[in-house]
């Protein structure tokens, strides 16, 4: 049964051994407005729920055959497209628009995505966030990070105006125009707290800068990432009089998330990456084919520089323990992340915060668990690695994806699939016979296969959906196979995580009429 081999290709995919700090999230929607956990649900899953045996069970017991429309409705449930509006029939932006989508494996999904246009400054922000140990941290990033970036980019004068407006109680002019799918939500209860933290940040920015000054995109991204992470940490330490909010900030801080964010302004593309998300540029070669140009480095054990960095930041005595089994302290897969205060705070601070925290935390064994060999915190940082790329006419699109995508498809394959999808069938790399011995029969078979592949593209109106279809449904020949797709999508919630991770994708298409034809805007 070839499908079985497909299904067993996965390893346990939990990003953090021990999975979730707040296992109750499995049963409840993540939205805290409805979150009223009862103590019966608060049982520690560490270490009993190590997902070791689960995937040994026969998947046949749990797989159903989905019809193609059912498959489509699952794949398309979270798809979203945005087209940059045209003025006078012209799109003067370097971005034509983007397609995004996500496919859950966790229940609820721990990935988040954000997209917004900066209104006070120029440029567009796009980001994917991969949460672990719950979705709280990723959710917070998806709501807050772009505000921090937008603030950091603002010139001194704009910040002053903003402050003056708040001071005088005047309405603020909007800072970001969000492009959200209906399922992308905001945590309403926390908005005041978020706003106060943000205001403190911009007040500091005003103090630190002088008139006429603003940060460049690189500094702005760096500052925003670090500041938000420290605010997450601080909010958890301070707590809140409202017990729900207090509980919420602790959930955010004790969970973690990676972030991969792109800022596109004219021909300048900045990618800020923290963790193992990835930004890959689709470059169209002169012959029409597509090649992948990676704009970020993964922060995990596969990256030697990262391993060296972490080992260098701690005493030689910890060299063997700081990275074990390709995980940070033997526990965490990404080597950089937001939140995850268990890897950042001192043991005393962790204990102190937990003791003063809401009652719900007290029964949680996991909170009391201190990572082994925890000697010289912090072990983890949210500091991003920032790449700058000047867009050229041949740069056609940018794929931002969480690691769920990249571990199923090679980046070259990703770029090929998206490139062929976006340019349509006719732009596919043309076949040439030139000198090879090909019989008419062989050619017919080859063409039939190409035709079948092309017809799939017409099912999807969204490039990200098309990519997910391939990521989940590819068979050993690199072609989407309905049976595989159906089996993968019909896995029961508790099994899905064994075979695939949450996948979140944003595909941004560049405007070839603008890109490469203009001077620097910044």
């Amino acid at each position: 049964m070839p499908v079985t081999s497909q299904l067993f290709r996965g390893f346990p995919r939990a990003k953090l051994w021990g999975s979730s700090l707040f296992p109750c999230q499995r049963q409840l929607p993540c939205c805290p407005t409805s979150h009223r956990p009862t103590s019966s649900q608060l049982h520690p899953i560490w270490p009993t729920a190590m997902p070791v045996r689960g995937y040994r069970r026969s998947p046949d017991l749990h797989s159903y055959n989905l019809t193609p429309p059912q498959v489509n409705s699952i794949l398309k449930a979270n798809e979203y497209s945005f087209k940059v509006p045209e003025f006078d029939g012209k799109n003067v932006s370097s971005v034509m628009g983007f397609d995004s989508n996500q496919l859950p494996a966790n229940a609820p999904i721990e990935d988040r995505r954000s997209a917004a246009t900066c209104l006070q400054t120029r440029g567009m922000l796009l980001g994917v966030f991969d949460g672990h140990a719950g979705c709280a941290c990723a959710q917070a990033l998806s709501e807050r990070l772009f505000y921090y970036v937008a603030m950091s980019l603002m010139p001194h004068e704009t910040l002053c105006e903003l402050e003056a407006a708040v001071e005088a109680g005047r309405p603020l002019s909007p800072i970001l125009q969000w492009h959200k799918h209906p399922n992308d939500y905001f945590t309403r209860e926390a908005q005041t707290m978020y706003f106060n933290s943000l205001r403190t940040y911009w007040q500091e920015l005003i103090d630190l800068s002088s008139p006429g000054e603003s940060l460049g995109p690189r500094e702005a991204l760096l500052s925003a990432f670090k500041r938000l992470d420290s605010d997450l940490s601080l909010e958890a330490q301070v707590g809140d009089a409202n017990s729900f909010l207090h509980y919420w900030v602790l959930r955010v801080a004790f969970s973690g998330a990676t972030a991969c964010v792109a800022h596109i302004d004219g021909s300048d593309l900045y990618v800020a990456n923290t963790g193992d998300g990835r930004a890959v540029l689709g470059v169209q070669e002169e012959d029409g084919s597509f090649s992948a140009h990676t704009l970020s480095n993964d922060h995990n054990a596969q990256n030697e520089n990262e391993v060296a960095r972490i080992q260098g930041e701690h005493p030689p005595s910890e060299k063997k323990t700081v990275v074990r089994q390709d995980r940070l302290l033997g526990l965490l897969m990404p080597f950089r992340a937001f939140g995850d205060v268990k890897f950042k705070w001192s043991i005393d601070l962790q204990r102190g915060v937990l003791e003063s925290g809401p009652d719900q935390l007290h029964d949680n064994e996991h909170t009391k668990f201190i990572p082994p060999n925890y000697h010289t915190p912090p072990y983890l940082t949210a500091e991003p690695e920032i790449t700058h790329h000047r867009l050229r006419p041949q740069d056609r699109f940018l794929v931002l994806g969480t690691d769920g995508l990249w571990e199923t498809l090679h980046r070259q394959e990703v770029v090929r699939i998206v490139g062929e999808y976006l340019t349509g069938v006719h732009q596919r790399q043309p076949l040439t016979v030139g000198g090879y011995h090909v019989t008419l029969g062989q050619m017919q078979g080859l063409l039939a296969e190409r035709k079948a592949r092309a017809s799939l593209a017409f099912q999807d109106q969204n490039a990200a959906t098309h990519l997910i279809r391939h990521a989940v449904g590819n068979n050993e020949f690199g072609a989407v196979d309905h049976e595989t797709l159906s089996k993968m999508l019909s896995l029961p919630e508790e099994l899905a995580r064994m075979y695939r991770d949450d996948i979140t994708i944003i595909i941004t298409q560049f405007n070839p009429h603008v890109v490469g034809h203009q001077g620097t805007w910044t």
Partner: protein
Amino acid sequence: MHCSCVWSSRALSPALLPRLLSHAGCWAPGTRPRGIWSSPRRLASAVETTQPIPLPSQARVVICGGGIVGTSVAYHLAKLGWTEIVLLEQGRLGAGTTRLCAGIVSVAKPISIECKMADYSNSLYEHLEEETGVKTGYVKTGSLCLAQNQDRFLSLKRLASRLNVMGIPCNVIKPKEVSKLHPLVNIHDLVGALHLPGDAVVSPPDVNHALATAAAGHGVQIHERTTVNHVMMEKGHVTAVETDRGAIECEYFVNCAGQWAYELGQASETKVSVPLHGCEHFYLLSKPLPEPLQPSTPVVMDMDGRIYVRAWQGGVLSGGFEKNPKPIFTEGRNQLEIQTMQEDWDHFEPMLSALLRRMPELEVCEIQQLVNCPESFTPDMRCLMGETPGVHGYFVLAGMNASGLAFAGGAGKYLAEWMTYGYPTANVWPLDIKRFGNLQSSRTFLRHRVMEVMPLLYNLKVPRWDFQTGRQLRTSPLYDRLDTQGARWMEKHGFERAKYFIPAGKDLLSLDASKTFYKPDWFDIVGAEVKCCKEAVCVIDMSSFTKFELTSTDDQALALLQHLCANDLDVPVGHIVHTGMLNERGGYENDCSVVRVKKNSFFIISPTDQQVHCWSWLKKHMPDDPQLHLEDVSWKYTALNLIGPRAMDVLGELSYVSMTPEHFPSLFCKVRNLFSPGHVMFIVYALHVYNEVMSVGQKYGIRNAGYYALRSLRIEKFFAFWGQDLDPFTTPLECGREFRVKFDTDIDFLGRASLLHQRQEGVSRRFIMLVLEDHDTELDLWPWWGEPIYRNGELCGTTTSSAYSYTLERHVCLGFVSPPSLDGSPAAVTPDFINRGDYEVDIAGQRYPAKAKLYPFSSLFAQQRRRKDEMELSNFQGK
């Protein structure tokens, strides 16, 4: 690099010619021609020393385009005795489409004039090698047109009937016989085939080369690597051609530039519209089969599979005409880029599958190459030939619709005749460039239309198909109004005309989808419309008709029309005259109605597709007199035709109520008898009279009718129509219209001498009406046009149009018959020949007995007597 060479008997001694031609230094150094037709001469390492021979400063004819078409025109002109012919080619001879085309010469073409051209080309190419000593690769392979279904088989049988008329051999055969003729064909899904033993294959560049050699032998100067920039004109005449190597003064210019003909036309001082557009066309070359395919293997045309296959160097050459063609965007591109056209295997996939289905053994055969060959297509799948309407001396021959090789010989001959005698020796109206107007040469229209035309080459063509793309170029102001009332539309000369009106509640979809050679689904609908025309009154929108106004200060207008028209136009003001405009031979150039509006002002109503042709005919004969003014007012008037016994009542009431000049200032109302004595018809020229007519007509049972009803009426009344029955080779005497010729005056109109001569000699062909007997309308195939007519078992003519007569409840065919010639000279038609023969009409191989008639049925004129008084009010009939 700008080398040029001349092939001319002036520059070269004739004895040296063949050798020099073979080794002429016209291939650029280091570049090897990339054609698939490699012949040894191409590889000869020529010494590249030839200096460009200067262009002559003047010539009689300059031909632009050194492909097979241009060289054929040069060849035939030279044969007809023309001198000072210069042929210019921007690249090398035969380097365009000719270099790449598949080399099949087949007579299986949709219309007879095309079959004739292909047949002539075939015999020309066959003897070319003999004439010039140049090898042409001519092999008389024969060809097989396969039918996968009964409808296709019927269309092949119809083709066979037509070819029989022309004396071209062909056999309708069974699938089993196909496998005897071709070793590879899978016959399991075939219902039959047509075998054309005369068809051949050639090597197109070699034929091109042979024609050039022969032309050069006759004194034609050929200059390669010379680009025509534009054509200069003065007072509507060609004066010179401006090339990149200087100007050449000339009287005639022939645009044979193939897919660049459109751009070249646009590049002249007065723009010439050459409506064609290029599409990519693909064919596959295989390596030799394990057991090499014999060169004499017949060509296979599997039109249901959209492919053709011929033997090629032991393997096969197979291409096709796909459903989704790729137009070429040629704007501003030069000739060199043609070579960069890409192979597109994904595009070829359906044709490859069809090929392997037809010849499964080819599966193991290796691919040599997929060739992408540009082909030019026109809006109606027929080539573009003849003198352009606006410019004297500017001729065009282009837009070959992927049959360039098959047509080049015959088309070149006809064009040369046209230039020599003023008209070819056959009726080429279906190919005449004047059938198109400016609207049909817009780039967008062409791009859409050629996407439909290319697949149409191999589509099953049933009677009365209409183009679907590029529609609504011109519409009547009533279009929307009629459309909401269920009108189904056809297109003529870009104009939308209602075919019939679908009654409310009928299933529209099923009506539009059906295609058949048998009784069509609109039968009852049209029947009801005809009935209403006969018993009450119908209104037909005839706004598409071409309308001209000719005015003068003095009697110049009358003088001109008296010269051009066969009938006497010196009638009282307000009278209408039905007349032909004849050529020198007495043949119809136009058949129109002329109204004398004022003493010196005439209103000319012609068939829709005469718009360009009639205009240029009038212009050509108009004296250069500023007092004489011709205006095309087709778009100014909406024409409503009220037809039926109650038409007079409707119109009478309408005039009484509101048809005062204040209400309808532009109203121009004439009682006239257009097609048929017996049905009173009115043409009302006015905008928005329609609503009035419909509301007044309600109590008389008025309804809309379409052209199908009108056609049925005109055919049962034995009324000939220009473009269908009448052509430039048909005289009024041959179609029983002596009464419309002013023989009794001594006015010397155009064609008078020929007619007088013919009257003396007697006509050798006669327009007759055939009423089919023993033909089951429900079950038998319907006639269309082009069916052979047999008299006492002997072929004697063909039909030109046909319709079901709802009055006679029979099929009526109109057509021409001629008695067999006894001593080589044509025999005159006698009444006995018509009345005392047993006639049969051959529909797809089945003969149906028919009653021949010289005059329409008098029973159809029952109402005429009733309306006699009104008839006499106006002098309808002329003399």
